[in-house]
């Protein structure tokens, strides 16, 4: 049960923090269509956050709500991947991150539709529809920008190098992951790796980008609450009103 709660927080926190990062682009995108698409993706992710953290709150059964979990935990208690909390960088970094995460997210949710927990399966099915579209869109843009101008190619390659060491954390299982896998709630993370690699290989090839040679798992710890220095600043901003006006209703 504590493992299930922890795992649900991981699902919710990934959606929340990535949604936060994407929403930072609002009004600042390179073309109007992109502004809309990013806001839309952010909106989907906030919707997922409500579902995952809502279920986490139920499972915990300690009187906390999804909002309490989102707004009243400090960084040590957040369970998101380091990948999703990195700063947006240029649009290349933002899109490459989306793609690398979407490709994982898609495989994970697909597997979760067969979860032994009906609630999890139900949320996954809802989210999967949206995430299929996220992946379609981010793959497409990675390909077009990778195989665009020299500059767009260079930026996409740089983005890939920057993010690569953070991707391994998605597949690095710990005791929490093992416990939910054993209960049939979630898949073995390692089992998702081959299909993720295949998607990534195919898209990078079409995008004329080279897979980095560095280790892909140098940067871990987010799932256990050991984050980058960036998360604290995200939370300071995100949680300000709830912290400054405790108990107020909005």
């Amino acid at each position, binding site marked *: 049960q504590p493992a299930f709660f922890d795992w649900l927080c991981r699902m919710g926190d990934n959606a*929340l923090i990535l949604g936060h990062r994407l929403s930072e682009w609002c009004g600042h995108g*390179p073309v109007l269509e992109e502004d*809309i698409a990013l806001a839309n993706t952010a909106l989907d992710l906030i*919707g997922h956050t409500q579902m995952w953290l809502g279920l986490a709150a139920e499972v915990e059964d300690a009187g906390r709500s999804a909002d309490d979990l989102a707004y009243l935990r400090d960084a040590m208690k957040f369970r998101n991947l380091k990948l999703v909390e990195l700063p947006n960088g240029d649009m290349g970094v933002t899109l490459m991150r989306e793609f690398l995460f979407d490709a994982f997210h898609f495989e994970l949710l697909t597997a979760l539709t067969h979860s032994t927990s009906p609630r999890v399966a139900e949320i996954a099915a809802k989210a999967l529809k949206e995430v299929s579209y996220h992946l379609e869109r981010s793959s497409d843009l990675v390909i077009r920008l990778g195989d665009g*101008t020299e500059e767009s190619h260079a930026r996409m390659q740089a983005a890939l190098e920057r993010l690569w060491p953070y991707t391994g954390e998605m597949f690095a299982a710990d005791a929490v992951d093992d416990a939910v896998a054993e209960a049939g709630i979630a898949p073995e993370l390692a089992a998702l790796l081959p299909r993720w690699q295949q998607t990534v290989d195919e898209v990078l090839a079409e995008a004329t980008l080279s897979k980095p040679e560095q280790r892909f798992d140098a940067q871990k710890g987010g799932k256990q609450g050991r984050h980058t220095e960036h998360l604290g600043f995200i939370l300071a901003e995100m949680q300000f*009103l*709830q912290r400054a*006006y405790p108990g107020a209703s909005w």
Partner: protein
Amino acid sequence: MSPEERAFQERVDRNEKIEPKEWMPDGYRKTLIRQIGQHAHSEIVGQLPEGNWITRAPTLERKAILLAKVQDEAGHGLYLYSAAETLGVTRDELTEKLLSGNMKYSSIFNYPTLTWADMGAVGWLVDGAAIMNQVPLQRTSYGPYSRAMIRICKEESFHQRQGYAIMMKMAKGTPEQKEMAQDALNRFWFPALMMFGPSDKDSVHSAQSMAWKIKMNTNDELRQKFVDETVPQAEYLGLTVPDETLSWNEEKGGYDFAEPDWSEFFEVIKGNGPCNEERLGARRDAWEKGAWFREGLTAYADKAAARRANALVAAE
């Protein structure tokens, strides 16, 4: 008036819609491009004051609602740019004009959003005033513009209700929340009144635009209507409209109210508003930093087209 012009005016008078490929006076086309373009720019720039609070929205639900709203605004920008494009101007041309300062956007977006209550006030007052302007424009003479307005008005009135709901939460909330709500009303009241433009007597181009049904009501008519609708809403919230002269005029069946400070209005238009530099700066920055992105997509499209052409040649 030439025979063409007369025939055109008669169609307008009969409430026929003018469509893109049909003949229209040059002035009609130019005025529409200016008006629709400015409206589009306003939607785009209008993302910024509300976007300012997305990362700080106080609950997940409020965050989702705000994101959806700002996304709608970008969508409105899209419809409107498309409507303008039917008049023979590209979106990029309009954007360049915005960024160079040759075209304006609504001055209201040069005011800052300082507390969460401003998310309420913007929805309630700013969208409220916008709707007041836009509802009649659903019947405007230019077909694509009229159709864009119909879509937009539907969403805007939804936004206005959401804004009012935020104001309600704040006005009925803790003393601090109520203080924020009142402060937001204090700050946005007169700027909202300015959204209808200067008094009719000082307004240029109005008569011709009204004959062409590009403008459907006078500025003062709309402002009066706005005040009459909004004052009771403020009362219902338990907030005080920041106008000591406000009073019900039985005879005219509407409120008497103070004019906004038009010198402030003209200062803001000149660029001296609280956020002119931030707003246009943010848009310029987005445009410049996005150049590589747009160029990348264009280059890919060109390559893809060339590849398709080559494939066709090879197949023959």
